[in-house]
């Protein structure tokens, strides 16, 4: 008797080969039968998949669930979208190895860069593993519903070895020690190293990874090369020229140390359409030279929501805004927004955006939309642009942003939708490119700015059904076997007998991401934006049915594990 049979499904096995009709059998967490008729077999659970696609579970290669997985084993709502495996520890930040004395500094850096509310992080991350990477792998792996493939963060590694003063070059001994610690992390199961060339810490200084001489990165890549593990890079994605140079740098590291590399994100921008061409040409040159360089492209357009009650990365580089949004109390913020001098300086800073037509992200304040209001009398403003309302009120969009927020005690939510990466034909062509790695969801991060869930559903609804940029089978392959192959997750990404039973059952005609909605489920009182699934029927992780449309999240389902290589 089998544990699970999925009957009469349309099997899209992850290889890109054409779909076919058949049954899938699972026992002991593994696929024991794929395609053969199991009409006469019995099982503890039978799923009727008639009319549905049965595919491998989706793999999300760029996430920041590091914090969320400590207090939410389901990574809600990632799994219901068919995601069964995630890569954590991206962008130089992992929750281990972190010294007990450096937890607050690390936490502040993570919360800033990944936009995680302090209350949620502080309440949810209990550091129950102590300091070591192996301890974290073991502790989290005991209570997780999805598979987690963890990276080690370069900034974290530097803090661990260099101590609090990590804004400097390491000594030769320290580099050797970093290599040893990295080796220990890889031995404990890390799938690679992540580094950042753009992020800043709460003191507005570059994160530790940005202070590393190139020779240090080379030394660490040599360690990655001992085991063929991944180097993940977050690069100057807003500058095509610098992106090309980083690709060349990564190609050199890839060839020199025989490692795969990936950079994220890569966006399409209507104001600079040639930039993507330039970058993809560099990627093609890298591959032609024998290197492995995978640019990650997300499926969803960029949109951002914010309230002036919280700081948002959107305001990071707008003159005058960041210090005000970083003020500790609500009262201090209100005082700043109502102070004529500060208000004038904030308005001037925001007005600069209106005159930047060639900006990589078009952020003209007149296009901001009122998303949610704090008082009934303003309800008719919801859905209207600041430009439209400003004309009506005889003011400017920048002034209106502040005045409306103050009027509503900073409870107003604003949104800028489709800032970029919204040209469906162009993005579809990128996603279909053979060297493009579909990913960069940022799952679990930027929780108050945008929903990072449902990119997989959007891949099918937008780029399979609407633009026809990819065949169904190719889209599945992009987020299953391709991802598993790129990252060396040999046991996953394909429906094949003997492989881990990570499975998604979905309706190819309806799978999608739901609308972006506010959720107050995180610890603390901050809200986050999420999207629920559409068109997914069942999600199985290592043979354990973890979510189904009929029953929702299965209580106690803990089929996930740390994917240690």
């Amino acid at each position: 008797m089998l544990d699970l049979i999925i009957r009469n499904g349309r099997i899209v096995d992850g290889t890109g080969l054409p779909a076919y009709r058949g049954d899938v059998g699972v026992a002991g967490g593994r696929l024991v039968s794929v395609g053969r008729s199991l009409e006469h077999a019995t099982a503890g659970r039978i799923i009727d998949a008639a009319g549905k696609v049965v595919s491998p579970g989706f793999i999300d290669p760029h996430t920041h669930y590091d914090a969320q997985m400590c207090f939410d084993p389901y990574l809600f709502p990632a799994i219901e979208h068919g995601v069964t495996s995630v890569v954590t520890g991206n962008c130089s930040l992992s929750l281990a190895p972190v010294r007990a004395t450096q937890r607050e500094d690390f936490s502040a850096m993570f919360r800033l860069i990944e936009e995680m509310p302090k209350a949620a992080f502080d309440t949810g991350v209990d550091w129950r593993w102590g300091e070591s990477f192996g301890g974290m792998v073991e502790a989290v792996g005991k209570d997780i519903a999805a598979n987690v493939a963890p990276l080690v963060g370069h900034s974290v590694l530097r803090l661990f070895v260099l101590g609090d003063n990590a804004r400097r070059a390491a000594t030769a001994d320290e580099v050797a020690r970093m290599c040893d610690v990295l080796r220990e992390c890889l031995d404990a199961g890390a799938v690679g190293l992540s580094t950042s060339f753009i992020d800043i810490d709460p003191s507005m200084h570059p994160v530790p990874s940005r202070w590393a001489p190139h020779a240090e990165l080379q030394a660490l890549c040599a360690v990655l090369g001992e085991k063929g593990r991944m180097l993940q890079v977050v690069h100057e994605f807003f500058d095509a020229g610098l992106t090309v140079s980083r690709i060349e740098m990564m190609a050199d590291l890839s060839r020199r140390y025989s490692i795969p590399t990936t950079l994220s994100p890569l966006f399409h921008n209507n104001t600079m359409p040639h930039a993507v061409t330039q970058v993809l040409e560099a990627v093609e040159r890298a591959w032609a030279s024998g290197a492995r360089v995978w640019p990650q492209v997300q499926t969803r357009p960029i949109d951002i929501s914010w309230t002036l009650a919280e700081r948002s990365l959107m305001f990071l580089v707008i003159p005058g805004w960041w210090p005000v949004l970083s003020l500790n109390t609500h009262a201090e913020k209100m005082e700043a927004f109502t102070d004529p001098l500060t208000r004038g300086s904030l308005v001037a800073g925001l007005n600069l955006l209106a005159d930047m037509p060639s900006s990589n992200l078009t952020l003209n304040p007149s296009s901001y939309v009122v998303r949610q209001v704090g008082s009934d009398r303003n309800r008719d403003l919801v859905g209207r642009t600041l430009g439209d309302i400003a004309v009506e009120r005889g003011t400017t969009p920048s002034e209106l942003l502040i005045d409306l927020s103050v009027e509503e005690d900073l409870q107003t939510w604003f949104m800028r939708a489709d800032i970029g990466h919204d040209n469906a034909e162009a993005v579809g062509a990128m996603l279909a490119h053979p060297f493009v790695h579909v990913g960069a969801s940022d799952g679990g991060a930027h929780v108050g700015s945008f929903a990072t869930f449902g990119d997989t559903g959007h891949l099918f609804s937008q780029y399979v059904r609407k633009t026809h940029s990819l065949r169904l089978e190719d889209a599945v392959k992009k987020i299953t076997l391709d991802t598993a192959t790129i990252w060396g997750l040999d046991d996953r990404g394909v429906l094949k007998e003997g492989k881990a039973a990570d499975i998604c059952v979905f309706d190819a005609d309806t799978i999608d991401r739901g609308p972006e909605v506010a959720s107050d489920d995180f610890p603390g009182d901050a809200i986050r934006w999420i999207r629920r699934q559409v068109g997914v029927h069942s999600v199985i992780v290592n043979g354990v049915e973890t979510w189904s449309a009929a029953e929702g999240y299965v209580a106690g389902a803990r089929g996930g594990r740390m994917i240690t290589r």
Partner: protein
Amino acid sequence: MGASRRYVFPEPGDTLATLAERVMPGQPDAAKTLLSWNLHLAMRPFPVGEPGEILCTDVVYLEPPTARAGA
């Protein structure tokens, strides 16, 4: 694989001036010229320290931007 634009990474302790001296020896106004080819260093939203201070991870171009056909 041919680089599309030549660049180097600074060594520990480098400033734009010391790097310019090394990569453009004897050239008058080398630091200014180098900066003009690397506006991303001049325009960064969060300076890394004193003026002219650079990071070892900075891409520092050794030549001006190349014109791109059709761009």
